[in-house]
């Protein structure tokens, strides 16, 4: 810890600052501002918790402070404000980034295994259990 402090002091003395990956611009208008209509805001918030932040991949855009997440929240809020349904907004983002952007996977070719695996495993387990029961009799 002391070494780290020494390095930081030395860096400050040399006039160095850590490389920044953020712009100096203010966030998008609706990145942190709620919609005036509470019903629409509730819809937008629910959708924002179900969309993946693309630069911090484990978080939703609702949880992330990344600038791109702010831009995506602005997009979600303005589109909901304009009368689009959450599913339309989600479909728009999926048409750009693929179904990975949504935390609510649809049934399509990419997610087929995800949806079918539990059914196949349950069926397999059921077969095993019934066989055992038969043997006991």
């Amino acid at each position, binding site marked *: 810890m002391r070494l780290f402090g020494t390095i930081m002091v030395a860096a400050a003395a040399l006039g160095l600052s850590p*490389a*920044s*990956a*953020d*712009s*100096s*611009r203010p966030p*998008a*208008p609706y990145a942190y501002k709620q919609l005036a209509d509470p019903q629409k805001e509730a819809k937008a918030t629910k959708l924002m918790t179900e969309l993946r932040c*693309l*630069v911090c*991949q484990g978080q939703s855009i609702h949880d992330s402070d990344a*600038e*791109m997440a702010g*831009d*995506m929240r*602005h*997009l979600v809020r303005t589109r909901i404000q304009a009368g689009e349904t959450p599913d339309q907004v989600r479909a728009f*983002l*999926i*048409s*750009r*980034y*693929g179904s*990975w*952007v949504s935390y609510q996977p649809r049934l399509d070719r990419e997610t087929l295994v995800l949806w079918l695996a539990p059914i196949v495993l349950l069926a397999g387990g059921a077969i095993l259990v019934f066989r055992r029961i038969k043997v006991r009799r």
Partner: protein
Amino acid sequence: MRRKLWLLVPLLLFVGFVAAAAWRLSAPPDTSIRSRMVGQSVPAFTAAALLPDRPGLASVDLGNGKPRLVNFFASWCVPCIAEAPVLLDLQKRGVVIDAVALRDNPDDVREFLANHGDPFAAIGSDPIGEAQIAFGSAGVPESFIIDGKGVIRYQHIGPIAPEQVAEVMAEWEKAQ
């Protein structure tokens, strides 16, 4: 004897699981997000001029018979500095490069271009990432090649490295 062989099955399954996990953990998945817009027409967007002496960029400027390379960059983006000389090289080879400056200011961009070179025919401003999302781009720098009919033919994620110039030139020729 047969029954004894069956007892090996759980062990074999476990060994298989460990092998699969070791294989995937040693080669982490590619986390870059490819745009679904490749192969489709350029989306509607307008990026107003950022500098007074340079036109902005909008969807109507693309697909007018000649291919263009659209480069998403920013003055605050460190890898963009590494890419700058490669873009100048591409321009020398005849690639027409337009830029979309993400969340940027005129003064910062002017300084960036003065320091690192200026290969851009047009520079549109994208203050809140609307053009970026329209293209399905997830970061800077990223480059898209748009053919003469206005169809996005190629997406390059991250800075174009010198050894990738040949690949980009091949895609450029394909878009003719």
